[in-house]
């Protein structure tokens, strides 16, 4: 790749911070070539590999499926790997990249997601199937599957979590990602402990801690809607017994074909 090409350049402003050596975060500017098809991640890579190897960030899949690369770009959380650099530049050809907000910074753009994972664990993200499994698969209707779509593709990137001001205020809040996961499990006809789950979510750290700020929807790179999941869980929590009963009924027929309509 020739260096004397005619491509214009982009100015990339990056927040740097190494807690071992720096007193506080500072901004640093880099210049990279703006080639067609360059993503923000490409720009970071170019800087890391050819200008300053100490620039630190997470990435892996580079096509928005692994959830490593969520960052705070121009004031918004997003995945940088599928963000076209050109579209993120302001009038002066500049882009500003910071780590995800409200989380401790480990180094440069790498944040400590411990609280994120702790909350994920707290909702028991795994399915708890009924005691006796059928010989083959449980039967689920395509509609039942579609109802889970809003949660199924969550890649646990943390963009929603770190955009939520309630998370900024208190790490005791379960958070949009984990509530979305809880929603996935509660809505799954194969899960046999929806009542227990709803009871767990019913506390002050759960569904009622959400203040309907909506940042989580705006931030989600997978176009998921945690707010809607939270509102749904709030309603289900209020008719927990009925919901549990309906689940027990449904599970009696889990190994029977879905009737044709």
């Amino acid at each position, binding site marked *: 790749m020739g260096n004397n090409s005619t491509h214009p350049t982009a100015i990339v402003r990056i927040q740097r911070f190494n807690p071992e050596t720096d007193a506080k975060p500072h901004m640093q500017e880099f210049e990279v070539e703006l080639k067609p098809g360059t993503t923000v991640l490409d720009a970071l890579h170019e800087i890391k590999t050819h200008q300053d190897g100490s620039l630190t960030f997470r990435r892996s899949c580079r096509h928005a499926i692994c959830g490593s690369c969520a960052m705070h770009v121009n004031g918004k959380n997003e995945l940088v790997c599928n963000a076209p650099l050109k579209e993120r530049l302001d009038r002066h050809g500049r882009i500003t990249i910071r780590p995800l907000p409200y989380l401790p910074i480990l180094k440069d753009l790498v944040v400590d997601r411990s609280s994120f994972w702790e909350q994920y664990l707290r909702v028991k993200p795994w399915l708890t199937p009924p005691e006796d499994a059928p010989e083959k698969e449980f039967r689920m209707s395509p509609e039942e599957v579609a109802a889970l779509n809003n949660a199924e593709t969550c890649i646990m990137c943390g963009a929603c979590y770190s955009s939520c001001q309630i998370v900024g205020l*208190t790490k005791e809040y379960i958070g949009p990602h984990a509530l979305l996961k809880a929603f996935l499990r509660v809505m799954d006809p194969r899960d046999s402990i929806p009542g227990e789950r709803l009871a767990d979510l019913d506390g002050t750290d759960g569904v009622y801690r959400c203040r309907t700020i909506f940042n989580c929807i705006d931030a989600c790179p997978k176009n998921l809607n945690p707010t809607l999941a939270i509102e749904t869980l709030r309603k289900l929590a209020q008719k927990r017994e009925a919901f549990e009963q309906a689940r027990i009924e449904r599970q009696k027929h889990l190994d029977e074909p879905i009737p044709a309509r």
Partner: protein
Amino acid sequence: MRVFQMQRISAIALVVFLTIHMIVVHYPPFHIDFDQIIIRMADPLWKAIDIVFLFFVLMHALAGAWVVLTDVQRFSRLKRAFAGAAIVIGLIAFYYGTKTIIAFQPPV
């Protein structure tokens, strides 16, 4: 949790009561004095409405204050203390407010 429901139910109630209150009491925006107020307040129906209003507004306000405070992680350990304080303040304020409402008597 109950606090959330309290907040939402009282909010809906407030939509009604607060609207009435604002229109009737704070408008028209002329000088208000005791005599004007006393005429309306003489009516027991108004007294009843105001007491219910007071109840909801206190519920909403204290629940709201509790929520604002406990959203801050540092205060989370004081959750119960705050709830207790809110109840006590609520009761005192409700007693005081009700007494006030009843105290509005037309001059003899």
